[in-house]
């Protein structure tokens, strides 16, 4: 890792700017009536002016990222592998379609940034047919990439205009091959940033590539114990204004994915306390334990209608609870983690400015006793000065 003591690190979040110079980190609430660069310069222009573009490093989670739709032939191999790669490349997945059901699937109403089609080992062929091409004809998308069996590549190229064909992400042992698709998606993310005027203008202050924030955070995980007293294994929850990211080590997954990366990422796109406040409340209302938890926290459901510090605290606590539920067997989602094995839960993002360790411990205790019926209590660790982001940002150039 390079010494970056004289570098300026900037994170453009959905709600805040964070700026790190030396050991000092400042945070500024964004003004959504102004362009990002204009807003940033108004708040920290003098500081930014002291640095050369080569010494300024910017990452962003504010441009919404790319949306992906994945079409695969099975849930436990093709869809799961492509989902895993997309998450790790910083892509938001709007839906996954099991190919055999494609005839009954509705079309997304919004334009999809990238469609990923996957299925089969190279020794197999003839998996895709007219039903795929019909669906693609009706779908609105900007990019499409095929990463399935090479035997079907020619037919796919004939029938889907402008499709990019990459090597299969499933090898002959049914293991995942990440690299080609990951590079493609990461480059697409980069092009997307460059195409979005708001973010693109940030290149006026930096000569370095602008990365997605989750990518930067993920880079910090292998060296996280250099900064924190974290007992392995751990999970990292990045709960912010718009989304919640969970980073976890692979050995916590009961899964058939074997990759070279030590850590994976999972995103809950509509789980935040600012931009995604309403969807968080909806998710909470759909969880049968929510009302018991609210009682436990000595509030009623009227808290959902309130604004202010108390309501934000409770919503943050609910977000922690819902995320833990989503990673447990109680609410089966993309992946289940071995939550009884984790020793630390590291929290970063906006949540660290709102909740104390004690307030998080209450939720952890409630979750483990009610959902997992266990006395196990992982230790909550707060990254209240965004040290994980700075660690990742410093190591990633």
């Amino acid at each position: 890792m390079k010494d970056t003591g004289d570098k300026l690190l900037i994170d453009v979040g959905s709600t805040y700017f964070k700026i790190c110079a030396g050991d000092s980190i400042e945070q500024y609430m964004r003004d959504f009536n102004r362009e990002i660069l204009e807003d940033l310069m108004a708040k920290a222009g003098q500081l930014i002016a002291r640095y050369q573009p080569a010494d300024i490093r910017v990452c962003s989670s504010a441009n919404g990222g790319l949306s992906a739709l994945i079409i695969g032939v099975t849930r436990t191999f093709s869809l799961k592998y492509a989902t895993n790669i997309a998450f790790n490349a910083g892509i938001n997945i709007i839906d996954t379609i099991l190919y055999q059901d494609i005839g009954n699937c509705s079309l997304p109403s919004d334009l999809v940034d990238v469609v990923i089609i996957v299925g089969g080992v190279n020794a197999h062929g003839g998996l895709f047919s007219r039903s795929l091409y019909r669906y693609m004809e009706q779908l609105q998308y900007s990019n499409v990439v095929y990463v399935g069996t090479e035997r079907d590549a020619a037919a796919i190229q004939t029938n889907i205009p402008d499709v990019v064909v990459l090597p299969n992400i499933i090898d002959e042992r049914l293991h995942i091959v990440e690299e080609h698709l990951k590079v493609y998606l990461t480059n697409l993310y980069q092009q997307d940033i460059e195409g979005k005027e708001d973010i693109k203008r940030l290149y006026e202050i930096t000569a370095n590539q602008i990365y997605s924030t989750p990518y930067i955070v993920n880079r910090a995980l292998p060296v996280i114990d250099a900064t924190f007293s974290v007992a392995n294994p751990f999970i990292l929850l990045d709960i912010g204004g718009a989304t919640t990211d969970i980073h976890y080590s692979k050995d916590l997954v009961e899964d058939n994915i074997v990759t070279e990366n030590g850590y994976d990422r999972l995103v809950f796109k509509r789980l935040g306390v600012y931009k995604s406040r309403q969807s968080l409340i909806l998710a909470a209302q759909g969880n049968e334990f929510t009302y018991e938890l609210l009682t436990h926290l000595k509030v009623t459901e009227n808290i959902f209608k309130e604004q202010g510090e108390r309501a934000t605290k409770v919503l943050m606590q609910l977000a922690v609870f819902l995320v833990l539920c989503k990673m447990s067997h109680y609410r089966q989602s993309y992946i289940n983690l071995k939550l009884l094995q984790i020793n630390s839960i590291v929290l970063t993002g906006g949540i660290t400015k709102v909740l104390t360790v004690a307030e998080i411990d209450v939720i952890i205790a409630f979750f483990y006793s009610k959902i997992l019926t266990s006395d196990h209590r992982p230790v909550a660790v707060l990254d209240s000065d965004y040290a994980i982001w700075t660690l990742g940002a410093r190591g990633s150039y």
Partner: protein
Amino acid sequence: MKVVTGVVGNDIHVVANRLIDLALRARGYEVFNLGVNTHLQEFFDAVVETGAQVLMISSLNGEAEGWGREVRLLRSQYTNLDDLIMMIGGNLVVGSGNGEDIAARYRNYGFDIACHQVDLNTGLDMLAALLRERGIQ
């Protein structure tokens, strides 16, 4: 001829799994080995991904009994597995029982061949005979 194989459920009998892998390859099959601790859905999904004609499940610690009951229901959710030949072998029950009765029970679960405590080569001969009978090369 492609075969998907593995050990079903929470069962870590890797030696038997390896022997099956070797024996299948020695007989000329193209083997996709999912290893131990494999869930039922992974077996069927692997068949879809590979285009395997045969699914050969092994079980050594009695896990098959519970999983076996799910086979028909799960298989019915796939649109393209009608011609799949399904075989299961190993120690298929907890405790003891009559081999023929146990095999009949597993055939009722949807397996074409069930071998309870049957020698591996004998089981593979049974598979070869079934393939010949169905005219599959």
